[in-house]
């Protein structure tokens, strides 16, 4: 039983890393980033390609974070000129461009053939020990990320990004340029997504552009919407609920055998959608939030 639970936990933690970036970007700063999977993909491909060319996994993960941060700079500049909802669509388009590029830059990424045989973390350990070691590492990284974002949220920097979220014009009137703060926030979230991507690549060991569709972004959004966007615990709780929903449907059949196999995919997506609507309408602050949270 344990290896399956470990696998679920690892993927949950990867979603937590993605969701934490959105908590910082949207929950605290108010940036609607609908292209999160683009940074995730850049991280996954960077680390996969480096390690497949002989670099150690550690280097790959750090490079993944750095590579994912790079597009945050131009995107941050664009964000200054666009309305919230336009920015959402532009970032969504960005993630699609990333997917189209990795699909078609065949000589680098082998395109739709994907990259198999990506090195696993702790491959030298035997099965169970290596799973636990991977889990421990991702858990440590996630905790570090949580600590870092908590620290940011409670700092003068965090105060200012929340001020930007509440009223950007007033921030300018107080002599501070929101641009640089937004860029930094995008970069930090992108780096977390890049690291998540690297862990994902090294865990699944095979990546292909089809894994980096906008649905991944929406799942991360669902996680913070369900859990509560302006609280860090929201990202954790929301990701856990999301994974229970997605994986739990495997067990539904034992209890509801009348649902046909092919209807199950529809039921799964319907339940996710319904929960999302109910949560937004009835509990806008998410499960962890208090009434009046942003």
């Amino acid at each position, binding site marked *: 039983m344990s290896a399956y639970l470990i696998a679920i936990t690892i993927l949950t933690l990867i979603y937590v890393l993605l969701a934490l970036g959105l908590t910082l970007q949207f929950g605290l700063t108010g940036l609607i980033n609908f292209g999160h999977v683009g940074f995730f993909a850049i991280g996954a491909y960077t680390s996969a390609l480096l390690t497949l060319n002989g670099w150690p996994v550690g280097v790959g993960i750090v490079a993944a974070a750095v590579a994912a941060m790079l597009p945050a700079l131009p995107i941050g500049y664009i964000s200054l*000129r666009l309305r919230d909802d336009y920015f959402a669509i532009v970032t969504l388009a960005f993630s699609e461009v990333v997917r189209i590029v990795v699909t078609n830059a065949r000589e680098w990424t082998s395109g739709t053939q994907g990259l198999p045989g990506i090195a696993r973390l702790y491959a030298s350990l035997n099965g169970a020990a290596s799973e636990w070691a991977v889990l421990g590492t991702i858990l440590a990284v996630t905790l570090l990320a949580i600590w870092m974002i908590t620290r940011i949220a409670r700092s003068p920097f965090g105060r200012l990004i929340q001020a930007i979220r509440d009223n950007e014009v007033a921030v300018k009137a107080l002599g501070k340029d929101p641009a640089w703060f937004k860029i930094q926030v995008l970069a930090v979230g992108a780096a977390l997504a890049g690291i998540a991507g690297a862990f994902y690549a090294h865990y699944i060991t095979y990546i292909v552009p089809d894994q980096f569709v906008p649905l991944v972004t929406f799942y991360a959004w669902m996680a913070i919407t369900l859990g509560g966007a302006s609280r860090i615990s929201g990202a954790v709780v929301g990701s856990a609920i999301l994974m229970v929903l997605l994986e739990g449907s495997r067990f539904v059949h034992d209890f509801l055998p009348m649902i046909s196999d092919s209807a199950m995919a529809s039921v799964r997506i319907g339940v996710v959608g319904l929960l999302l609507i109910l949560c937004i309408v009835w509990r806008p602050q998410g499960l962890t939030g208090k009434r009046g949270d942003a």
Partner: protein
Amino acid sequence: MSNFPQLIANGLVQGLFIAMAALAITLAFSIARFPNAATGDVMTAGAYTGLATQSATGSLILAGIVAIFTGAAISLAADRLVFRKLAGRAVVASLVASIGVAFVIRAVLGVTFGLSQLVYDIPLTRAKLYWGVRLTPLDLQVAGAVALALALVFGILHLTPIGRQMRAVADDRDLARVSGVRPERVMLALWMISGGVAGLAGMMLGIKTVVEPELGWSMLLPAFTAAILGGIGSPGGAVAAGLLLGVVQEMSTPFVGFNYKLAIAFAALLGVLLWRPSGLFGKREGVR
């Protein structure tokens, strides 16, 4: 050598579908003030109910009417049950909720109609050459139907009292309220028109391609792109930008190949937005 007139024609035909979807999005936006991600799945619903009607009665006209009513009904229901409750909240609340609505619609369609592809039973006819450009009668029929739908929508917007009220509310809700417009009624009418356009667009798309659960969802991003490119909230802009996107995508293929089509559309979007942040035909907005 590439046959550019043919590419333009192909682009226009594809652009018609983008234009219809973008029109539905932009209409909803002009009053509800958020990009409705459920539009794609409303289209899919129109495609399925139209198909069911056609195979039951054999009439495409009837199918079109059913598709329009399906779209209108779903939109109204979504507004009543979800979007209205979110009025006054941040844009992102409605946007994320609309993704939820999209998923629920798709789930219902999947359970009802299954996941395998279905097709409209339309006899195929050969293409004809018009000034060296090959077009099929189906293309022309679809174009005609789209043009008719657009004419109808613009007629409603510009020639009827409710249409004038819609434009008034879209321009300035408070001002409209003061001048005696009842936004409730206008909202209802608008959701119906937006949904009807989406339902019909879905059916047209279903006739042209095949009907499957992700039919409308995969149309969503190009449609959003066109709606923003045209200046969101501007119906004429959405249609023009949809056609433009279709043509630009096809015209780019001799230079960048077929695989970067969508990327070209996004590059166009980005370029336009950096140049004109409110889109080609949008009203400029400033900080007051």
